[in-house]
């Protein structure tokens, strides 16, 4: 990785965005292209991962469970072994169809550079109050969940004490736990849909662990407060998401967090005349992540909103490899293209076109479904013929689905349609809460995979028996969760030796007993770390005598 004082006029590949998609794309492109430029508008690489201090990242890419900052840093380490030219604080102002990129930078000024191939990895932004039109007064205290996360995790500032969260997307759920750990009272999460858009694991570990109620089919219909938020009116909604008169009640609070969806930041793609999918506001893509403008590629959340950063990286790798090929004059060799369309019960499918050539063996397709489904099958249809079926136990809009086809399966088709065939549409969604019978049996939901088996744990003679699990992993999870639930704690600690007070993220090196989390937080809150310190540095050894350390998940090295 080269940080530079000047840039050349021409590059093989220019990557816009230094988040996980752009990092992966740049690293991959540099394997076959000598001249790669990575432009990032923030002072640091890593994008949104820097504020996602919770864990759950990296199982696919690094085969270990990492926090967001860990994941970013590990990828930045990969970048350091390459010859990619990296510019942070470089804000792209304009891109053209001819792949000329104009950007500004505090040291370099206003710069124009020419790319052979361009990768747009600009991520997404959050939907705001204005986009969803909540009625009522307009006091301060209404935040998107991500903005509150930035204040809390990067600036070490709390945004409120009594919090209502609208929307049960993962960021909202994660922030419910995070704000609770930092001393706020989260009064409830309200979701307009009859199901949660977040992962089961997050509902269990972020809401249930802290007795935060999740109210489905409810929404905020009015915000009150002259200066700061003072209360919200909550209403139940009907099946068309319209508030039901007479169901209103008021909840006093000083803060509203919005976790109501993400919007891909496709402004540069639109400016270049890239064909867009009007429904999702994402670019129409080929299977190598190329847009309709030859040599312009997209990856990560700008291409589709992901659940897992690992898949963002994988898309980046695809885009990086293809862009480097393009820059090297290697055009995709193909004999035909197959169009891919979203069929029954799909919100979208990507890519939209697959180019079939000699070197292609498999085709990966990603999509989201439009409702909750029980046992069902995903069908790949060509004309009137079902050419492939995939059985699924469970489908939900909150989960990005992936299917893999072989070249042979679609070689004869000019277009295919992906759809869901199910008898179980809108099967009743149950909020995964734990209940206990009078005899001590516990009922709870397995969080190992999205299927979410309903488990029952019977304790007899110190032996735990789990029923309801579909696989052995459920048995292991159930036995642990029923008797001795364990959690990894992620938080931040104060720093010393900087002009500004800010925090660095930390985690426990292993799960600790759930009932020790509050005590552990007290100890963590008292820690002050001195500059500099590497990622992995122990800031608390053997916390509470549990044999678990608390370590930094980000290197502390900024100049004073």
């Amino acid at each position, binding site marked *: 990785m080269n940080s530079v004082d000047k840039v050349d006029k021409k590059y093989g590949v220019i990557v816009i965005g230094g988040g996980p998609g752009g990092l992966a794309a740049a690293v991959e492109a540099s394997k076959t292209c000598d001249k790669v430029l990575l432009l990032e*508008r923030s002072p640091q690489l890593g994008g949104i991962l820097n504020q996602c201090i919770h864990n759950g990242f990296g199982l696919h890419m690094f085969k270990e469970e990492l926090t967001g900052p860990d994941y970013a840093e590990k990828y930045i380490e990969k970048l350091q072994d390459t010859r990619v030219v990296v510019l942070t*604080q470089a*804000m792209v*102002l304009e891109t053209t169809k001819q792949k000329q990129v*104009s950007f*500004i*930078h*505090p*040291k*370099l*000024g*206003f710069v*124009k550079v020419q790319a052979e191939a361009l990768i747009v990895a600009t991520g997404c*932004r*959050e939907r*705001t*109050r*204005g*986009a969803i*039109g*909540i*009625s*009522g*007064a*307009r*006091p*301060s*205290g209404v935040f*998107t969940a*991500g*903005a509150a996360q*930035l*204040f*809390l995790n*990067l*600036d*070490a*500032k*709390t*945004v*409120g*004490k009594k919090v209502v969260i609208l929307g049960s997307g993962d960021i909202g759920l994660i922030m419910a736990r995070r704000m609770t750990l*930092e001393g706020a009272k989260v009064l409830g999460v309200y979701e307009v849909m009859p199901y949660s858009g977040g992962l089961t694991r997050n509902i269990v570990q972020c809401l249930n662990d802290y007795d935060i109620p999740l109210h489905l089919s409810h929404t905020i*219909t009015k915000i009150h407060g*002259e*200066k*700061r938020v003072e209360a919200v009116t909550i209403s139940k909604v009907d099946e068309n998401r319209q508030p039901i008169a007479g169901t209103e009640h008021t909840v006093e609070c*000083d803060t509203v967090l919005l976790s109501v969806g993400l*919007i891909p930041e496709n*402004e540069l793609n*639109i400016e270049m005349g890239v064909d867009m999918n009007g429904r999702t506001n994402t670019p129409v893509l080929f299977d190598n992540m190329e847009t309709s403008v030859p040599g312009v590629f997209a990856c990560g959340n700008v291409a589709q909103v992901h659940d897992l950063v690992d898949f963002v990286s994988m898309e980046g790798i695809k885009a990086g490899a293809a862009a480097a090929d393009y820059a090297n004059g290697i055009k995709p060799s193909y004999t035909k293209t197959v169009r891919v369309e979203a069929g029954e019960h799909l919100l979208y499918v990507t890519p939209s076109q697959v180019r079939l050539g000699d070197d292609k063996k498999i085709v990966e397709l990603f999509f989201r479904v439009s409702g909750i489904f029980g046992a069902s099958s995903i069908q790949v249809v060509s004309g009137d013929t079902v050419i492939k079926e995939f059985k699924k136990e469970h489908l939900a809009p909150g989960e990005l689905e992936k299917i893999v086809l072989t070249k042979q399966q679609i070689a004869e088709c000019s277009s295919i349609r992906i759809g869901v065939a199910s008898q179980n549409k809108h099967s009743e969604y149950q909020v995964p809460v734990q209940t206990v019978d009078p005899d001590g049996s516990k009922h709870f939901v397995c969080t190992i995979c999205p299927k979410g088996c309903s488990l029952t744990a019977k304790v007899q003679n110190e032996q735990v028996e789990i029923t309801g699990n579909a696989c052995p992993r459920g048995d292991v999870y159930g036995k642990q969760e029923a008797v001795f639930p364990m959690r990894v704690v992620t938080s*931040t*600690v*104060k720093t010393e030796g900087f002009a*500004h*007070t800010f*925090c660095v993220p930390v985690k426990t090196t292993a799960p600790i007993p759930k009932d020790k989390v509050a005590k552990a937080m007290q100890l963590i*809150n008292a820690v002050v770390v001195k500059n500099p310190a590497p990622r992995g540095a122990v800031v608390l050894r053997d916390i509470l005598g549990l044999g678990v350390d608390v370590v930094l998940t980000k290197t502390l090295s900024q100049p004073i």
Partner: protein
Amino acid sequence: MEDVIIIGGGVSGCSLLYALSRYKGNFLLLEKENDVAMGSTKANSGIAHAGYDPEPGTKMAEHNVQGNAWIRANAKKLGIPFVQTGSLVVAFDEEEKLTLQSLLERGKANGVPDLSIIEGQELFLLEPNLSRDALAALYAKTTGVVDPWALSFAQAECAILGGGKVQLETEVTGISKQDGYFVVDTNKGRFEAKFVVNAAGVYSDEISTMVETPHFAIKPKNGEYFLLDTSEKGIVGTVVFPCPSKLGKGVLVAPTAHGNIIVGPDAKDSGKEDTSVTAEGLDYVRQRATKCIPSLNLRASIRNFTGVRANSDQSDFVIGESLETAGFFNVAGIKSPGLTSAVSIAQEMVDLLFKAGLKKSLNAKFVRSRRVARLHEMSDTAKKLQIAKDPKHGNIVCRCRQVTEGEIADTFLRPLPPRSVDAVKRRVQTGMGRCQGGFCTPKVVELLAEHYGVDMKEIPQDKAGTYIVDGDAK
């Protein structure tokens, strides 16, 4: 002792301070909020109306037409975002076509230049997205869109540089006249002046009552809006109005001076501070707007807001000296087209003050113009020079509107430095884009806290008390 105290820092008060600063004297503007342009000026359509609406012979007609000319002539040199877009009043039936005719005649009587009625091909060439049910439209070339905040700041800033004073967070609690001069009591102490001008917007009736027998009452009407993303730019090129009714000029669809699309307002009787948005109000706006522009994409809304108009029980603006208390003047009931008229009303007020005895002598230190450096408006070469001069201009804070740290830093050096996140927004458009400050608010809070040397929790979103963060996490 001040020569003139102006009560209220809306566009009326700021315009008057600027107009007065052309002359020697002690001029003080008192504003109860923590910034100027905080009342009706803060939230309105931002239109420089042509002047065909008001009845001929009214003050509204006179000041509208003159104000429009003033804005067209002066916006650029004062660094006020302004675009002369032209406007259409659209007729959908024969009766409305008659209305167009009478508006045209009224406009001519008021002295509005460049008015014509267009129809058919010509109309749809001008506004291709206009409903094909439209029969004809009154086309007014002099209508424009203006940044109402900049119109206020620009004048206030110049006035201060020329010797005028603005005192914020100063609320008038009483006024009395003794020994030929006025004593103005406020929460920040007592001020004295030879003349007092009441430009207190929705509160102007309350201020007037401190001095004279009530002769007008403010009857506020609020109106709700959608602000659409710049992605919708081009859906209309002119300000598109339906035919006016008793309720007002109707729901317009217009570009803003910053490249967004504004849609609204409705008109409802309201409280003086009732800026809440309602589902009913927005539904009404949606319905009306799509009648004119059927393809309008309201899903591109980035913000809803409500403004309160300082309407009064009088048919015309209330401008002039008190009949009971000499030296006390009202600039009140400044309803639409108040934004356009304010600069012209200020001229009339200055003349009235001279007639009442204010000494007339030119101020050699008068500052008539200001320059505001906006990176995204500069040529490539100018961008290079600007960043070379100060690297802060190469650091983008607001991504959506491409506002640099340098532009924010500049506002701290100008008169009336911002004290809140929204005050920064009103000056340089941070947080006015599609992410609505999701990304830049923390940085703006940080810059404000740094500038004032206070903790981030002392920085409000807007008015005092609208705190953003409430403490330290650890």
